[in-house]
Every structure is written in structure tokens, then in C-alpha cells.
């Protein structure tokens, strides 16, 4: 492997561990109290789901409005699995999250095939309807606990687990987008007809990208269940899907690091503005409209924050200064 690539990996991994160590230490000495710890964990879940939505919307260019539905499927699958079986904590956690993701992915396939076969904006409305179906189903089925919600889920997720889950998901997404498949997906967003005419099976890649997105959203949902210990079907409504959408648009459609920043920012802003919910939503809605009119690919656009580039820039500067 290229020396540069390896040193890049080392730098990134070091940075991830250093950030983890700092936050973990701050939690230990109670500078970050339980309340903020909770917001951090929720922000982590927001990052996972919003990043998955960014794959569908930012990279694939499809409007997906039912990610709360995929989350709910993942959450209920993982939770029911963990309640049913009796295995060591981490086995249950990992198996539950994967299972939740897989089931969400299967549902993604079921609704993705009819909607994505067509050109046009059907996915938005189908996913919206799908989210509603899931919510209605969860409210009315008995094995999901119905309207009262699903209780008695073990708490397997805390800051450490969510932090590394986020790292894993983000690393996977970066690798995925830069792979052959990722480039095919990007080309569909750029120009579907041109992509098709150079031989890219557009329907296949649209469905593929969407299923991966649903899978990750399911994993995020599973993590939510393992953190909250109770699942309320009413929470997984249309507005919940839209919140992820706002994160993606704010962070930049096609920027994973932008999504991370926006998710962190919104998790805290949501918490502070909770008491004035109406105003909060009016502000978000206005932000969406104004952003689309004046900067239609979101605040960060497609820019990615890169630690390596930043470090290189610094080292170059110091070299030049030394030479002087």
C-alpha cells in the first residue's frame, strides 16, 4: 500500500481515538453531565440516520421522505430480537443492529423496486406513504406493543458504543462512495440519461444505493431502541423523517462531514428550542426554502472536511516558514 495512504489512516485513527478519549474523560469527570451525554448519544444516532439519508438524497439524488419508517423497522426488529434471545451483551447488540438493518434493507428493496424503476419523483411520495404505513402498523399490531410502545429493551448503547458505531458507519460510507459502486451512484445523480447511455444499470444502482441507505437507517433505529429502552410508535412520524432531511440539506447534499456537523448542531439547537417548537419548525422551514433558492446544494455543498489535507496545509506552511 502507498505510504501516504497508510500515514493517512494512522493520522485519522489517531484523531478519532484522541477525540474519543477527550470526550470520554470529560464524561468521567462530569464536565459533560448526563443531560449533555444524552444529547451527544442522540446526536450520534442523528448522524447515522442523516448520513444514510444523505446517501439516498445527496449522492443518489432521490427524495426519500420515509427514513423514520426504516428507523422504526430497525428499532423494533433489534429490540424484539434482544428481548427474545438471551445472549451476551455485545453479541445481542451487534446481531440486533445487523438484523434491524437487514430487515429495514429488505423493506427498502420492496418499496425501492417499484418506485425507483420509474424516472421522476415517485420515491418521495412512496417513501412518505410507506413511513405512514409503518407507523400505522406499529400502532395497531400487538407484538410491537401497539400504541403503548415497546418496553423492556435492554440498554446496550452508551457513549462508547454510539461513538464507534458512528465511526464505523461514516468510514463505511466514505469507502462506499469512493468505490466503483459509489461512482456509479454519483453519475446517476449527475445525469441519469448520460449514465444509462454509458452502460450503467441505473435502476440497479438506484435500488442498491437506496437499500444500503435503508440498511444504515435501520441500524441507527436499532441503536435508538438500545439507548432509549422504550420505543414509541408515534415518534416515527413524518416530521421525524423531515428532521433528518433538514440535517442533510443544512450539512450539504453530498457532504458526509457536513452531515456530521449539522446533526451535532441540530441535536443541541433542538434541545434548546424545544420549548418554542412552533417557532423552531417555522425557522427550519424558512431555512430550507431560502437555502434552496440561494444555495441549492446545502450549506457545505459537496465539500468534505479532511484532516489529512488540513495537516498537509499546516506542515507546508511551517516548511515555507522554516525555509525563510
Amino acid at each position, binding site marked *: 500500500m502507498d505510504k501516504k495512504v497508510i500515514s493517512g489512516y494512522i493520522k485519522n485513527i489517531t484523531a478519532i481515538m484522541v477525540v474519543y478519549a477527550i470526550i470520554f474523560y470529560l464524561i468521567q469527570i462530569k464536565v459533560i453531565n448526563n443531560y449533555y451525554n444524552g444529547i451527544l448519544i442522540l446526536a450520534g444516532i442523528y448522524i447515522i440516520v442523516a448520513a444514510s439519508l444523505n446517501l439516498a438524497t445527496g449522492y443518489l439524488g432521490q427524495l426519500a421522505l420515509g427514513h423514520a419508517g426504516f428507523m422504526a423497522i430497525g428499532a423494533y426488529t433489534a429490540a424484539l430480537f434482544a428481548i427474545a434471545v438471551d445472549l451476551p451483551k455485545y453479541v445481542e447488540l451487534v446481531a440486533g443492529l445487523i438484523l434491524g438493518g437487514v430487515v429495514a434493507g429488505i423493506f427498502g428493496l420492496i418499496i425501492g423496486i417499484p418506485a425507483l424503476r420509474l*424516472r421522476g419523483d415517485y420515491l418521495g411520495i412512496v417513501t412518505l406513504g410507506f413511513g405512514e404505513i409503518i407507523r400505522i402498523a406499529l400502532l395497531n399490531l400487538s407484538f410491537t406493543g401497539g400504541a403503548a410502545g415497546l418496553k423492556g429493551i435492554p440498554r446496550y448503547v452508551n457513549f462508547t458504543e454510539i461513538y464507534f458505531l458512528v465511526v464505523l458507519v461514516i468510514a463505511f460510507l466514505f469507502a462506499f462512495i469512493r468505490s466503483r459502486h459509489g461512482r456509479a451512484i454519483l453519475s446517476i445523480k449527475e445525469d441519469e440519461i448520460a449514465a444509462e447511455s454509458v452502460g450503467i444499470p441505473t435502476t440497479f444502482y438506484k435500488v442498491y444505493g437506496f437499500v444500503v441507505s435503508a440498511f444504515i437507517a435501520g441500524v441507527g433505529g436499532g441503536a435508538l431502541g438500545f439507548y432509549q429502552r422504550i420505543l414509541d410508535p408515534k415518534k416515527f412520524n413524518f416530521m421525524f423523517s423531515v428532521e433528518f*432531511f433538514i440535517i442533510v440539506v443544512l450539512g450539504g447534499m453530498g457532504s458526509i462531514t457536513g452531515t456530521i456537523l449539522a446533526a451535532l448542531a441540530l441535536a443541541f439547537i433542538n434541545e434548546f428550542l424545544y420549548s418554542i417548537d412552533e417557532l423552531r419548525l417555522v425557522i427550519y422551514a424558512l431555512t430550507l426554502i431560502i437555502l434552496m433558492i440561494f444555495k441549492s446544494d446545502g450549506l457545505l455543498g459537496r465539500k468534505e472536511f479532511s484532516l489529512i489535507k488540513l495537516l498537509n496545509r499546516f506542515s507546508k506552511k511551517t516548511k515555507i516558514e522554516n525555509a525563510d
Partner: protein
Amino acid sequence: MAQFIQQIINGLNVGSIYALIALGYTMVYGIVKLINFAHGDILMIGAYFGFFALATFNVPFGLALVISMILCALVGMAIDRLAYKPLRNAPRISALITALGMSMLLQNLFRLLFGAQPRRMPAVIELKRIEIAPGIAISNLAIITILLSVGLMLLLEFVVKKTKTGKAMRAVSEDKAAAKLMGVNVDKTISITFAIGSALGAVGGLLYAINYYQVEPYMGMMPGLKAFVAAVLGGIGVLPGAMLGGFVIGLIETLTKGYISTTWADAFVFGILIIVLIFKPAGILGKNTREKV
């Protein structure tokens, strides 16, 4: 049998409202190829205007209807001017997100202004049940709803087919550039389309509110979505398709409620959307159009 016919009548009642709303979706989609998510909220606004006219100013029903239609037409035109027009040549997804943002804005603005509590719609017409056969009754409200809807649809059909404005609308939806070359004022035509669609939405909203006795900021979402499903079912962009789709969705919904399950009725409607997209994506009356590069 009597119960079945009763359900059909109820279905036609709801269906005619969906059809009115679906027309707005399909007209806007036909002309600017945009799913106007905010259309559902136009019907909410129409219901609110109607509510204030009826409850606060005590105007008669017919006048309230006209006021609500005119105001909603203005709101629809304003939305188009402010939010959609700057994005006419932008990527589709930007316009869709704007529409979504507009929908959120309208809902939450009305929640901010008038509160989340549902308000009780005054009884506009003295409710009378007319027995047409043993066990089958139709309320005068249902008759008014159905007649008004069908009448407006016929009027719309006339406007689109016979008037100069309608001709312009059809031309713009077929080919914007060519229409412009022929001297059609494209922007004005689009504005008129939004105005007509929104006015019909206002009637739908007011009738919906009267049928369900209340107005609230989020009331537009569900009927809006179902009307969209109706528009897709009938063939999006095709006016008779939207009417047909509306009636079909209304019938399916009431029959599901009557014979299968009340709680699952909404899920059923969305299930139909998915099935339609699998088997006949162009809708019942839609044509398969070839794509031009």
C-alpha cells in the same frame, strides 16, 4: 346490500373532495413537473379562511366559499412567485425540497398563529338526512359536496378545453419553449394554473372541514397525500384521471373502513399507490410518454 350502497354514497362524498384536491396536484404537475407538497396545506388554509369567514364574520356559506377560493388563489400564486419561480430551471430535487419546506412553513405558521388546538367548524347547513330507500340515507351536506365538486370539475374541463387560457395551459404543459415561441405568456399561465388549482383546493378544504366539523393546522396532510395518490392512480397530469382517481380512492377508503378495518384504511390507500406504480406507473388514464434527450 343497503349497507353497501350506503358505503358507496359515503365513498363518493369523500371521493369528490379528494378529486377536487387531486386536480390541483395534477394541474401543477402537468405544467411545471413539480409535486407541490404545499397543496395539501392550501386546503388547510382554505378551510381556515372559510372558518373565519363563517365563524367570525358570519357570512353566508356561498360567500365564504368564494372568499376562501379567491384568497387561496392569491396564496397559491404568491407561493409560486416567491418559492418555485426562482427554481424553475434548478435541479428537480431542489424544487421538491422547496415544496416540502413550503408545506412545513404553512403548517407551522398557522400553528404559530392560531394554535394547535382544532377549532370547531360551525354547522353551516342544517343537517338533514334524506332517506332514498330503506336503510339508505344521504345527507344534504353530501349532496351539496358531490354536486359542488362535480360542477367545479365540469367548469374546469370547460375552461381548459374551450377557453384561450386553457389552450395556453395545455400548450405550456406540452412544451414550454415552443409555447413561448408561439407568444404564450408562460409565467402568467403558470400563475393562473396555481391560482385555479389552489382555488379548487380551497373548496376541497372547506368541504372537508365541514364534513369533519373541524379545522387544525395539520389537517391538510392526510387528505393532501391521499389526493396525491389519487392523482397518480388516475394518471398524473391528466385532468379526468385526477377526478377518477379521487373517486376511486374515496370508495376504497370507505369500503376498507366499512368492511375490513378502520385503523388500516390509510395504510391501504398507500399500499394501492405502491401497487399502481408496479403494474401501471402511468396511471389508469395516463399515457406512456417517451423520453426526449
